[in-house]
Every structure is written in structure tokens, then in C-alpha cells.
């Protein structure tokens, strides 16, 4: 494994992009010169990309096809602060919260490879805490929308009835990913702290990080297409 990686890295100095693809994909040998767990996480994330894309495309389709005006997200998700209504306030805070958690995760990966167990675990727990905060804000958002605004998956008082179905499905599935990520990060951070990866190496932190960054990545698209469009 280490041998093939060294060969691959050495060959990369002279070969062109196409040659490197031919080299990696031809013959009976390992194609991806990364730990198998990392390759599998990338393939899982690729499949997840397709799921979220189907949801967002479905949302686009119902929004394009409805003859009834779409509710204005800027107003629907606005909050009133000291008597002044600020558009999309909560969503903005949630966006910055997730970006912050992505940063702490990236640092955790770095300290993991430096074998600094204390800092790695601390940064991962911080990331998980930001994730939990995100889910909490989402729970608040859902509660407000359901109880105060009367939004249902089949109807709402503001406009096109497909709004509720799209909203609950897309943000619900994303929130599920964040929740699963918080649990995943806590488990890995706990095992890092216990020293489980001293022999195997700290690729697992990078793999968990890939999942977490993907959750942030999906939010970038949801924020753009659902909340801002």
C-alpha cells in the first residue's frame, strides 16, 4: 500500500493528467491511492449528492409549474428584533454557524495528522456543538413555521401549497444529516481521545471531516436555491 502510494506520487511528477488517469485505472491494482475508508466516504457522498439534487430539482419543478405565487422566503423566514423585522435573520445565523463548524473541523483534521489527540478531540467536540446548535435553531424555525405561521406539507396561508412539502422535505433531510453527523463526530472524537487510532493512523478524522464538510456544502446550495432565490 505504502509502496504503491510512493510509486504513484513519484510518477505524478512527470505524467500528464490523462496519463495519470490511465495509470490509475488500468491493470489489476488499486485505483484510488487513498485509504479505502476515504474512497468509500467519497462514493457515499457522491450518492448523497444525487439524493439532494433530486430533492432540489423536484422543488424547482413544482416552483416553476405552480400557477399560484410562491411565498416570499425573505418574509416567511424573517425575524422581528426589537420591533424591527430583519429578513432571513435566523437562516443567516444558521449559515454562519455551519461555516464556523466547518472551520473547526478542518483544524481538527490538521491536528489529527499531527497526532495531537487533545486538540483534535476538542475541536471535533466543538464542531459537534456547533452542529447541535444548528439543529436546535432548525427546530425553532420549524416550530415557528408550524405553530405561528400555519405551514403544512399540503397547504399554507402564504401562497403555493407545494412550499411546505418542499421545505419540510429538503431541510428535514438536511437536518437529519446534521444530527447524524453530530453523533458520528462525537463517537470518533471519543475514540481519538481514548487513543484508539494511535496504531492505525488518523485518516478517520479526515473521513469524518469529509462527511461534515459535505453537510455544510449541501447547506450552501439549500441557502442559495430555497432561501435566497
Amino acid at each position, binding site marked *: *500500500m*505504502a509502496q504503491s*502510494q510512493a510509486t504513484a506520487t513519484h510518477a505524478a511528477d512527470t505524467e500528464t*493528467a490523462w496519463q*495519470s*488517469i490511465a495509470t*490509475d*485505472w488500468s491493470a489489476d491494482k488499486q*485505483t*484510488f*491511492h*487513498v*485509504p479505502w475508508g476515504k*474512497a468509500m466516504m*467519497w*462514493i457515499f*457522498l*457522491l450518492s448523497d449528492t*444525487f439524493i439532494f*439534487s*433530486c430533492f432540489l*430539482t423536484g422543488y*424547482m*419543478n*413544482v416552483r*416553476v*409549474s*405552480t*400557477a399560484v405565487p410562491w411565498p416570499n422566503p*425573505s418574509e416567511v423566514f424573517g425575524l422581528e428584533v426589537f420591533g424591527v423585522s430583519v*429578513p*432571513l435573520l435566523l437562516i443567516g445565523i444558521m*449559515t*454562519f454557524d455551519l*461555516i464556523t463548524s*466547518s*472551520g473547526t*473541523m*478542518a*483544524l481538527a*483534521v*490538521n491536528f489529527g*495528522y*499531527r*497526532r495531537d489527540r487533545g486538540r483534535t478531540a476538542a475541536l471535533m467536540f466543538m464542531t459537534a456543538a456547533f452542529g447541535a446548535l444548528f439543529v436546535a435553531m432548525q427546530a425553532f424555525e420549524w416550530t415557528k413555521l408550524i405553530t405561528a405561521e400555519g405551514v403544512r406539507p399540503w397547504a399554507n396561508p402564504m401562497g403555493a401549497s407545494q412550499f411546505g412539502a418542499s421545505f419540510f422535505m429538503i431541510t428535514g433531510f438536511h437536518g437529519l444529516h446534521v444530527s447524524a453527523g453530530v453523533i458520528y463526530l462525537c463517537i470518533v472524537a471519543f475514540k481519538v481521545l481514548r487513543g484508539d487510532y494511535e496504531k492505525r*493512523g*488518523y*485518516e478517520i478524522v*479526515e473521513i469524518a*471531516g469529509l462527511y461534515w*464538510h*459535505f453537510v*455544510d*456544502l449541501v447547506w*450552501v*446550495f439549500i*441557502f*442559495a436555491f430555497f432561501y*435566497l*432565490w
Partner: protein
Amino acid sequence: MSSATGQQHPLKLYFWVWGLLFLFSGFSYATDFLPHGYFRWGLILLFMVAKAGFIIAIFMHMAWERKALIWAILGPPVVLLVLIALMVIEGDYTEFTRLNSFSAPIVPSGHAAAEEAHH
């Protein structure tokens, strides 16, 4: 595998990208104060692509992977453009059908249309 083979990059780079992500998130949020139209939609897409690019390239380390992995992961989602195009066409057609068949106020003159319906 020794720790030397893992993805190791200077912390300074991460802090830079972190800052840029904050900046672009701020810009994204600011587009909400613009009127709806191609300018606003263009900016939304621009900041979205910039943020997605930084996250994938730097935070997810795609910039330092070999081409075999990059193309295997980033290539397949391109076919989604076909699905999106099909759904735009289908959605437009559905809206056209709904406006024509299910909503009376869209017909230019309500009175004339009502008379025509009697024939």
C-alpha cells in the same frame, strides 16, 4: 501508514479559506436585499459556486487528490444537468397547461371567454 502521508497543509491556508467563506456568506446574505431579477440570481449563483469550490477544494482536500479520484467523484454529477434541463422544460409545460386550462383570470377578456363557454 505513517502520518507523513496524510493531508498536511499550513494552518494559515485554512484560516484564509475560513475567512473567505465568511465573506462570501455575508455577500450571499446581502443579495437578499436586491430586487429579484437576473442580477440577483447571477450573484446568488456566483457566491454559491465560490463557497462550494472553496469547501471542496481546500476543506475536503480535493485540490491535492489524484485526477483518478477527482474525476470519479466530480464527473458523475454533471449528468444532473440533464435532469435539471428536463424538469425545467416539463415544469414550464405544466405551468402553461395549468394557466390555460385551470385558471379563468388568465384568459385576456373574462367576459368574452364566459360567452364563448356558453356556445
